[in-house]
């Protein structure tokens, strides 16, 4: 099919339509709103055969979504930021129900202070909910990952809900070249949803039953974990089929100039593009720089991470999120993955940056690599880097001074 210019939001909506979703419970929030507006338009115009219902909160939206999935409908919805936090309770429930719906999260920082631009504290708050997570760097990936997410989530070896993440503004409102797959081919890739024990008159079921003992609870929770681990293999199969049909290959991680790289930056989502640029610049300077992008965040692609980071000198983990009092969220996951690996990197540098969509200059990215080189050269213990420039700090101070009438 011919490529067209689509925002990340439009790409997500288009993928939902291609997936022939039955049901879309919705609730507006910036920067996700364009997704639900788009599908609402299509449903009302009769060009999308789904039922669209606007709920009165994200918590209710997700309750309706999970319940509809249990009743046998293929369900799609979207949220951002505060909406994600507001419905966190339901994410754990829906995963526990084993209801394989797909939720698109358009990342946005989390109040307070309230902000519109992205970081990943919203989606990573759902990290331990049992939802599978796929994170996109481009608008093309958004569309492709939504279709892959349905295929993996609904596989009877998995039966877990999934989140597809894209960055607010940087992807949500940015038009990029997107090649939407043909409907006929999508239908062969993604057959109709086959629910397991749906709510029915002839064969009643109880879902969400209480358990009163830890061992029964553990039984269910370990089952969720095992299913999430099985999703690795299922994703690999699905991605293989996807590549055959549509020509685009997706692994759980993606390497960039990794082959002989000594200094590797680990990144995710749209800012990965900044990392790629920095790697290229470092290469021009003769530095063996490389990049590893996380695409699948849950299940965590520990095998691929271990294989691709083994033998490097210094790894930097770029967290576009903040765990106050600890640092970044991905850092301990990467460090934990590498601990027992033979030939693990000599050092792993934690970097936090891009909070609330904070711009990162090429100079800052170069600074990150300089630090990795310095750690290698001087054999020092990596000290966490929190990206914020002098000029940015002075702009904050100046604005405060003006507000206080001191300037």
């Amino acid at each position, binding site marked *: 099919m011919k490529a067209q210019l689509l925002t990340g939001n439009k790409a997500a909506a288009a993928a939902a339509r291609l997936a022939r979703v039955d049901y879309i419970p919705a609730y507006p929030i910036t920067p996700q709103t364009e997704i639900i507006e788009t599908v609402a338009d299509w449903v009302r115009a009769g060009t999308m055969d789904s039922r669209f219902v606007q709920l009165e909160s994200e918590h209710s939206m997700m309750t309706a979504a999970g319940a509809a999935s249990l009743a046998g409908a293929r369900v799609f919805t979207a949220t951002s930021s505060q909406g994600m936090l507001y419905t966190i309770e339901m994410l754990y429930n829906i995963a526990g129900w084993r209801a394989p719906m797909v939720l698109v999260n358009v990342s946005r920082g989390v109040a307070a202070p309230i902000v519109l631009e992205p970081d990943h504290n919203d989606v990573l708050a759902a990290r331990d909910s049992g939802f599978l997570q796929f994170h996109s760097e481009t608008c093309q990936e958004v569309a492709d990952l939504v279709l892959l997410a349905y295929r993996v989530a609904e596989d009877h070896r998995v039966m877990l809900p999934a989140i597809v993440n894209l960055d607010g503004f940087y992807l949500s409102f940015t038009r990029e070249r997107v090649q939407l797959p043909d409907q006929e081919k999508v239908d062969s890739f993604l057959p109709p949803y086959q629910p397991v024990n749906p709510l029915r008159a*002839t064969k009643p079921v109880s879902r969400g039953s209480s358990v009163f003992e830890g061992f029964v609870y553990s039984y269910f929770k370990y089952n969720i974990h095992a299913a999430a681990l099985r999703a690795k293999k299922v994703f690999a199969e699905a991605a293989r089929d996807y590549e055959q049909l549509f020509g685009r290959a997706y692994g759980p991680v993606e390497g960039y100039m990794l082959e002989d790289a000594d200094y590797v930056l680990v990144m995710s989502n749209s800012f990965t593009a900044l990392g790629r640029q920095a790697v290229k610049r470092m290469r021009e300077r003769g530095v063996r720089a490389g990049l590893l992008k996380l695409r699948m965040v849950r299940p965590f692609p520990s095998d691929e991470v271990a294989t691709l980071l083994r033998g490097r000198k210094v790894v930097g983990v770029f967290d576009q999120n903040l765990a106050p009092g600890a640092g970044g969220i991905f850092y301990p996951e990467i460090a934990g993955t590498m601990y027992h690996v033979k030939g693990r990197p000599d050092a792993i540098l934690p970097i936090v940056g891009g909070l609330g969509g904070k711009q990162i200059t090429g100079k800052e990215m170069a600074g990150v690599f300089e630090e990795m080189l310095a750690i290698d050269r001087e054999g020092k213990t990596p000290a966490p880097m929190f990206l914020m420039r002098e000029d940015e700090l002075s702009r904050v101070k100046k604005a405060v001074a003006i507000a206080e009438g001191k300037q």
Partner: protein
Amino acid sequence: MSTTSRFRTLKDMPVQDYLSPGNTLCAGCGGILAVRVFHKALGPNVAWINAAGCMTILMSYPLSPLKSNWLYTAFASAPAGAQGVRDALDVLMAKGRLPKSEDLKVVVVTGDGAAYDIGLQSTAGALDRRLDFYYLCYDNEAYGNTGFQMSSSTPFGSSTKTTPATSAFPLGNTASKKDLFEVWRSMKAPYVATLANSHGVDFLRKVEKGGTIKGPKMYIAFAGCPTGMGFDPKDTIEVEKLAVQTGIWPLKESVDGVVKHTVVPRSLTPVREYLRTQERFRHLFVPAEKTEAVAKIQESVVNYWRMAGEREGFSVKPPA
């Protein structure tokens, strides 16, 4: 009331039970009794959508006493769960992927904590959307499953675990019970009714009547609670009967906003007789009767029935 009801006397109570005898709830629970009778009136093919509360422990994996579907959602959002199930069944039937014979009546079942407090927003949403469902609130006037703490359904003068009667706070709860019937009615619910297990025919007829109405069908059932309210489990029906006879629990319905009392006591039994049956009101009588508080409760009941009578054209004799 419908003149063509299949329920004329208690003998018409359907024999078919959809809830097996024996379950995990307290002896004498008025809530589970309401669920049982409600189900009898509905017949088979039901999806119960539950919010956190006493009924949640009805399901204990892998056991279920129900012959119908069950989904526990969360404390605040059972009506949204009902929305999802209703919509999914509708869309699958519309697309020809589900035979009509698999259709279900979708029934939200929650306690007063969910209905009056934490779930009021999601109920309002379901009412705005005119969702075709039933809502059964079993109202024991407190958070029963957590040990009887105050909810906005707790009446004036009730002692609860979070509003205990002490020498500094001699009345227990001093807030008035929220009028959920009027809240739901104001949100344009096409059908709202109150129920009491002690008045089985009235109960069955109201469920039957709801079945003829498309849209939200909202019920608040008095749920005598031996454990929380403090009375002998054998007395549940007696306590519920007294709640009706004293006029404290009016049995009524609203059809498209028009309210009609379905059981009108000819003369009101003094509220004292109801209050004295329960530990939660004990401080109103011991060591000595707090006459002002009891009089206040009595007065509000008498006023309620006087105004209702003026609107509907009946008169109720206040207690001597």
